[in-house]
């Protein structure tokens, strides 16, 4: 299928994927006058001013810390709970376990807006608006369908005999899960964790309505609500955007294979 044009396709796809964002990264290290220059200046002056001002004046590190806490705890708890569920769904086969899997799939199809209002009210009743545990609880329930679907595809491939051997050696189900199944399923757990982390790190809609206190807001909210009515602080926005995206680009470059496998496991089975 390859023709002479094939290398052109590669270049075009690579360029279209990267250049818009690269432009923003370059913007973050430009001088203030360079940003608004026409013709656009490609080579930046490599100033760190926008990063300094994003940190000192706009509280970039606070948003970053909030994102790490919220996305990190969402990932840990979702994977722990999801692994229990996925284990049960692959090892115990009842008609209602299949129904549960379908229910999770159906739930993940619902638009966020259709649960946002009631979720807001529940968190408000509990006094959990503007708290880490409030947003994390909402995120866990949002990410569980994805986590469980990916984990079941991985768990299904693990041979049952190994566990049975562990039971014969006197392990309980939970011990067998912890000592035998989970170590074997580590690649699957890791794949699901990466995807859940990326989703939680990027989530905006629920963060916007649940975290109205700027001390607790995550990076996507901070970036969306960047103050500036008439003159946008583009340098600072670009700096914050670069900081918000860097961990994800590193994850993508390192774990491209796993991400693709995880996404297609979640999708093709769905």
């Amino acid at each position: 299928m390859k023709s002479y044009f094939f290398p052109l396709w590669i270049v075009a796809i690579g360029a279209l994927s990267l250049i818009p964002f690269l432009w923003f990264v370059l913007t973050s290290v430009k001088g203030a006058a360079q940003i608004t220059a026409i013709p656009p200046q490609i080579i930046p002056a490599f100033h760190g001013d926008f990063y300094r001002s994003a940190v000192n004046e706009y509280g970039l590190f606070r948003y970053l810390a909030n994102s790490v806490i919220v996305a990190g705890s969402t990932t840990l708890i979702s994977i722990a709970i999801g692994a229990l569920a996925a284990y049960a769904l692959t090892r115990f086969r009842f008609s209602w376990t299949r129904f549960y899997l379908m229910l999770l799939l159906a739930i993940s199809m619902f638009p966020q807006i259709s649960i946002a209002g009631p979720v807001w009210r529940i968190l408000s009743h509990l006094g959990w608006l503007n708290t880490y545990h409030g947003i994390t609880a909402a995120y866990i329930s949002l990410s569980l369908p994805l986590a469980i679907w990916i984990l079941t595809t991985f768990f299904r491939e693990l041979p049952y005999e190994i566990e049975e051997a562990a039971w014969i050696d006197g392990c309980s189900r939970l011990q067998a899960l912890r000592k035998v199944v989970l170590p074997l399923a580590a690649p699957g757990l890791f794949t699901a964790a990466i995807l859940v982390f990326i989703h939680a790190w990027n989530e905006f809609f629920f963060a916007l309505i649940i975290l109205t206190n700027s001390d607790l807001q995550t990076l996507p909210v901070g970036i969306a609500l960047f103050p500036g009515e008439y003159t946008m602080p583009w340098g600072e926005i670009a700096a914050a955007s670069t900081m918000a995206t860097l961990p994800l680009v590193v994850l993508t470059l390192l774990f491209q294979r796993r991400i693709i496998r995880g996404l297609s496991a979640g999708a093709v089975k769905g």
Partner: protein
Amino acid sequence: MKNSGRAAVLFLFPSFLFVAIFSLAPIFESFRLSFYRMILTLPWLGQKFVGWENYLDLLTDPVARHSVATTLIFVAVTVPLEVLLGLAVALVINEPFRGRGLLRAVVLVPWAIPSTVASQMWRFIFNDRYGLFNYFLFGDRTELYLAPLADPQLAIAAIMVADVWKTTPFAALIILAGLQAVPDELYEAASVDGAGGWQKFRRITLPMVKPAILLAFLFRTIDALRVFDLVFVMTQGGPADSTNVLQFYGYKKSFAEGMIGAGSAVSVLVFFLSLLFSLLYIRILGARVLRAG
């Protein structure tokens, strides 16, 4: 196995607890609230049953009707583009070549970028005085520069461009998974029979990845129906409601105006639109894919 039913319940309970409280109950609550009038932030004022009033308002409010139309147009333009471009990308990153892993990682970048970052980035590119978009179109002739995000026709197009950029990789990955399942022997046999590249594509690739393509259509449609982040950052639904898509309209009703009943009616509408499209695609796909679970 003894007690396996009980064990299953125990293992599934933690996940069910979260899903029941923060997903299932809210879904039912949304349906219920759509028949009530209630102020979100003033719950002590009580909730009044109003029957179909919220839905009737939705039908008669020109802003709401325009919002439905805008959302459907958005879906109709972006989803086919994303799937088509996704197919092209998938075909390229499925071929073996040096640096394929790197290109796959690069393709994933727009997908991985937080959507609010992508939104600010495109907002900057579409800037009316120093955006790259204007420079590419008009060069130094700044007197011709457009303000795409302040123009009702261009604003929705700009958001479409941003959405296609951001989500084509996802469509590509779904289709790539389909391509990888096509056995090489089919192509080899076709070569023996003297089939050309285009014939192989038409007669082997396309039929074999059809389920993956439809799946990409399904996922992208459901996702595009609830587009929000791009609109929130790039235009706030404006100018003149030209980008006021349903999820943004519902968000404003529920959280800016506090009319949670009216907002819930919008959410029920978005839900039924998603359901309608899902059923349509599943009908085309057949039950085959679902059975694989």
